[in-house]
């Protein structure tokens, strides 16, 4: 039924479905908004956005709902979801293109992927910390935990791959997870400080946890002693970096950019263009020097 409409619309009135695995994280809701904003900018594109609330089966249902509404293409923001073969299969069976943003699924066929290289972000942070700690010292690592394993793992592995080769640097992994939130980052940091008062730096798998960890460090009066490195480029983190606090670095993982690119990619595919299969969005290292240029008052993340 959408065929005649498309024809009448005179070239390119499309409906694109967005299947979010979860929206309850600023990064993910930012992604959703960026896609919608880019569609608005392009005009002629309707967006149907769904949220699976972190439930893989619901994601499958949502995609099925979208297909039943006959969307022209689907963008999947898979967040912490490792893969969803059945979802990809059903999209393929319906003959629709699918663009993955941020999360590249480990298995299954997709049309195109746009996202960051998480291990590279980790390495980048590792190198930065190594520079800042020429005399070595203890570096704490706060992991996000179950909900996002391979992404977090990639980031931590990146950091470790660099730091473990540096003499004098010891790595201390917090036993408990920070669950990707600032409150979790805070408590895990508190516990870490109780057992390792002599930390020189801490790396968290995302900025939200770093922000919590920063408070714990401040409360312990160790802001002079411990430096902080995160990932994402969350607005508050950029501000903290710009303000010259002990939050020194993050690796930009910009939902706004990835989201916009994802939408563009879907539109390109629909207009029949030949597109790159995988696109790694560079994640520049953000420090005090360049933080201002990444601040985006209109950005959603």
């Amino acid at each position, binding site marked *: 039924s959408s065929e005649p409409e498309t024809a009448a619309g005179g070239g390119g009135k499309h409906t694109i479905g967005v299947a*979010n695995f979860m*929206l309850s994280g600023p990064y993910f809701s930012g992604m959703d908004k960026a896609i919608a904003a880019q569609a608005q900018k392009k005009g002629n594109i309707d967006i*149907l*956005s*769904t*949220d699976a*609330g*972190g*439930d*893989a*089966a*619901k*994601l*499958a*249902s*949502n995609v*099925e*709902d979208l*297909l*039943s*509404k006959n969307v022209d293409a689907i963008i999947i923001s898979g967040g*912490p*979801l*490792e*893969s*969803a*073969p*059945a*979802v990809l*299969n059903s999209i393929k069976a319906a003959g629709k293109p699918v663009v993955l943003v941020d999360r590249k699924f*480990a*298995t*299954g066929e997709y049309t195109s992927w746009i996202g960051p290289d998480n291990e590279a972000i980790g390495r980048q942070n590792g190198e930065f910390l190594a520079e800042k700690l020429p005399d070595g010292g203890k570096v704490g690592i706060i992991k996000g935990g*179950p*909900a996002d*394993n*391979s992404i977090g*793992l990639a980031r931590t592995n990146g950091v470790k791959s660099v730091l473990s080769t540096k003499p004098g640097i010891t790595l201390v992994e917090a036993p408990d997870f920070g669950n990707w939130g600032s409150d979790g980052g805070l408590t895990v940091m508190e516990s870490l400080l109780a057992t390792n008062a002599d930390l020189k730096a801490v790396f968290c798998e995302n900025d939200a946890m770093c922000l919590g960890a920063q408070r714990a460090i401040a409360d312990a009066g160790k802001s002079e002693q411990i430096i902080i490195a995160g990932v994402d480029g969350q607005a508050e983190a950029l501000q903290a970096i710009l303000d010259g606090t002990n939050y020194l670095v993050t690796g930009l993982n910009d939902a706004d950019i990835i989201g916009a690119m994802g939408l563009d990619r879907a539109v390109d595919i629909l207009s029949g263009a030949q597109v790159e299969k995988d696109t790694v969005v560079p994640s520049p290292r953000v420090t005090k020097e360049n933080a201002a240029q990444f601040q985006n008052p209109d950005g959603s993340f």
Partner: protein
Amino acid sequence: MTGQLLRKPALVVRGRDVTVTAAFVALILALVAVAAFTSDTFLTPVNLTNLLKQMVTTGLLAFGMLVVILTGGIDLSVGSVVAFSGILAAGLVAGLPIPVAMLVGLLAGVAFGAVNGVLVARFGLAPFVVTLASLTTIRGLAFVYSEVPIAPDDPAFFTLGSAMAGPVPVATLIMLAVFAVGGVFLTRTPAGRAITAIGGNAETVRLAGISVPRHLTLAYTISGACAGLAGVILASRVGIAQPSVGVAFELDAIAACVIGGASLAGGRGSARATFGGVLVLVLINNLLNLYGVQSFWQQVLKGLIIIAVILVQRTNRVRG
């Protein structure tokens, strides 16, 4: 407590609890009618198939939950069991034939359910806390088994979750069969009647020579089995088993029972009405999606609709 029972007796017709009241059926029909008239998409075959698929997990968990709720208990651990059974089955696929791996996944659910049951029945611990603790423990075990999701290569792993029997998914048929057989179990077998009676008055049941611990254990085991089955089907449907899946699944299952008029104090509830509750929940979700309601507003509305539905249910019961 006794006072309340006297004032609001459940309707009972021909020895069966009738909680699927006319108003409840009307409510479901009204939801369907609204959906059909306001959305072009609702009645399309694709969407109807979606509906059928979407009710599988909640449906299976809700039936198991109903059995436990009838005894006056609750099973909070089902979401974690879904995760464990799924990831175990997916993990075992590497070394075992797929049906066997899936069976072992299901049996893991049975085992967890039995442990919950024994703790509640033999040690007399509060069901809420026992299953709250096992929720935590089983979730941890799922991650201990595999921190990362497992996606078996063999496409036959997807069959259970995605095969269709004509227009109806096989998984949905399995769920419906559980409700059908389960309904007969609850109303027409000695064990089913005993489970229902325990929720009404365990001491009376004990003095009637019926083993209360055994039936309590059975009830939790059934819930564990349903959760195990749901976990295996879910992993197969998604094609990948994640240790993190199933958080808060218990809440929808409980909501389905209560929307269907089951009493959390035990003794009152039916398989049919619980299935109605599942339908209501799935319809709400489907409609909110079809209307394109924004995710967070969906949550806001979902809560409000649940309150509205149980208000209707209650008004109806008090009058009845």
